[in-house]
């Protein structure tokens, strides 16, 4: 198949998988990891680029091309390095624990876990413009805070399910070994998060 054909097929599969991970995550993940088409990640990359462009405008608060471009490059490089680091870490630890699977499968699986991350960051950026913090302690502020925390926590649980399914299908690990991978990853993620915070790239890790 030529590049255009692969992109078209990847695009259709991407839309199907996005719908699938919302309504039928288990079945969808089994299929997308087995298919392991890296072309689907092109579309995810395009959405991420769209978000970084928006976040650059919101964060920079000035329409200066140099500052906007610099911010965009910093965010994209930070997210790209995080993605590769996370996949590499999962792959190495998972393999050491006897995992079987392909790197492409893990890459595609972890790629789709960025969907909840992207939704949260996108919504938070828009809310930052529409309802900028800090929240007040009056009733409206408290209600908004509770709703926002419910929204954030729901996406976090969704992310956890997708991350679990990446390890389950991507490396064929059982629950016990998935828990070991998660425990081994916690200190690395903690150090990474502090690093990203101090560098001023992401305050909440873009995992």
């Amino acid at each position, binding site marked *: 198949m030529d590049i255009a054909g692969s992109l078209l097929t990847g695009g259709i599969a991407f839309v199907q998988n996005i719908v699938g991970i919302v309504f*039928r995550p288990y*079945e969808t993940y089994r299929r997308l990891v087995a298919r392991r088409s890296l072309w689907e990640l092109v579309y995810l990359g395009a959405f991420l680029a769209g978000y970084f462009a928006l976040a650059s405008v919101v964060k920079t608060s000035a329409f200066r091309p140099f500052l906007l471009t610099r911010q965009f490059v910093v965010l994209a490089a930070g997210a790209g390095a995080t993605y590769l680091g996370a996949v590499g870490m999962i792959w190495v630890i998972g393999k050491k624990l006897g995992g079987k699977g392909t790197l492409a499968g893990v890459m595609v699986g972890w790629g789709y876990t960025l969907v909840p991350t992207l939704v949260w960051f996108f919504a*938070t950026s828009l809310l930052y413009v529409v309802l*900028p913090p800090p929240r007040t302690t009056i009733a409206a502020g408290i209600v908004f805070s*509770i709703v926002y925390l419910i*929204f*954030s926590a729901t996406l976090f649980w*969704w992310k956890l399910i997708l991350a679990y399914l990446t390890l389950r299908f991507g490396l064929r690990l059982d629950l016990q070994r998935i828990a070991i991978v998660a425990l081994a990853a916690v200190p690395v993620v903690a150090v990474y998060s502090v690093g990203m915070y101090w560098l001023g790239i*992401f305050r909440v890790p873009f995992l």
Partner: protein
Amino acid sequence: MRDATYQKFLHRWEQVTDLPPQTVGPFTPYYKRAVKRLKVMPWPVLVGISLIGAIGLYMVLGSTITLIASLLQRGF
């Protein structure tokens, strides 16, 4: 027609039996019951857990909960 149906069944069978079922010792029935709700349309469970968590946090922290929301809102 029967061959096509059989092939479809075979493919599905291989897909399902590809991974050994997850067991967690004596807790396996509870695990299966909990996971069943997360495999298809997990949103009611996810929103429910988050709702309980957020209200619980509000009951513990009171209006300080707005501080957490403010911090998260600056987190992008």
